């Protein structure tokens, strides 16, 4: 397969799920510039891993794994790059201010998630996105039982933090 065809195939694979990457960025980075940086790094890691993707797991599971792994293990050591290519350039239409709801509840939720430890953050993200215990277990590498126990604790911590933030 030539390079252009491979690139087109890659874009077609991740395009329908790009919201997933944005949600991981929203969970693990808290400034626009950090989110852009993480978004770009996740795209890069997905592209690097793409030749080895054989479709054994669901595309979304594969993408969650790489995005969460990048956020947790890699971002800290990655030197910040000047964002010459920003998210606005990446997309056909820039975000308009009207499309971003100005809602205190969103700020409370983001702050509550931000107060959690990385593993709890990952669990909460996957839970809020309606993933099953089995999928969470495939992404995190722990048993479904452990996912259940840990998720209950993470939810309790999230609720406590949300009440504190209100």
């Amino acid at each position, binding site marked *: 397969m030539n390079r252009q065809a491979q*690139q087109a195939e890659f*874009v077609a694979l*991740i*395009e329908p799920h790009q*919201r997933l990457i944005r*949600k991981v960025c929203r969970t693990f980075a808290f400034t626009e510039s950090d989110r852009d940086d993480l978004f*770009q790094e996740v*795209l*890069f890691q997905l*592209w*690097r*891993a793409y030749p*080895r*993707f054989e479709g054994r797991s669901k595309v979304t599971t594969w993408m969650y*794994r*790489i995005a969460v*792994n*990048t956020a*947790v*293990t*890699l971002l*800290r050591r990655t*030197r910040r*790059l000047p964002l*010459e*290519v920003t998210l606005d*350039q*990446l*997309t*056909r*239409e820039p*975000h*308009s201010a009207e*499309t*971003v*709801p100005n*809602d205190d509840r*969103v700020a*409370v*939720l983001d702050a*509550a998630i931000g107060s959690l*430890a*990385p*593993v709890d953050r*990952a669990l909460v993200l996957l*839970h*809020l996105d309606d993933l099953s215990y089995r999928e969470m277990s495939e*992404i*995190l*590498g*722990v048993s479904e039982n*452990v996912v259940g*126990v*840990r998720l209950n604790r993470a*939810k309790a911590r*999230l*609720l406590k933090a*949300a*009440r504190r933030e*209100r």
Partner: protein
Amino acid sequence: MTDIETLRQVWQEQEGADAVPPLMREALMAIVEKRARASRSRVTQRLRRELAIYAAMTAGAIIVLVAKAPSDWPLGIALLLMFFGATGGVMFFKIRALQQVQLEGTLRDSLTRMIGIINGWMTSYMIVYMVVIGSSGALVLVTLARKWGIGPLWWLAAAACVSLILWSYTSGRQYMRREFEGHRDELQRVLEDLEAV
């Protein structure tokens, strides 16, 4: 906002409200290319920095060789260059492994792999660093012994070499702590947290 379903609703409303325009292939590949270039450049920059440190460390040994053993210095420098080649090779592969860690496994696998790579890099760094210092010191002492014999001056030089080696070990450990231990410890804490029930 006091139950998880409300939080989930807020989360999903926010996600639904955000317009997510389609990705453009050219812009996406430009990002990928830029990140790839940056990753390669980090490998070469770090390698250059490490080799410059070693070059500075062996400069003393080369000066002593040229000054005190004019007939032997080509051999001494050839040995040092050979050593530099081996050092550069080890460093290159270790630094590249750190930059090219694969992240498509589970979080647990990725954390374990990353911690292993950082530990491997730290061990290799300390070994290479101490061997460079040790062999430079040994080269100086052998050269001086052949010129002066083993007398008070030689013992003074030997004491200076030992002090330099001890100082180098301490500074090497400090460099490791500053550059890698913090990140390694942070990953270790996340891994322990992930495994804790």
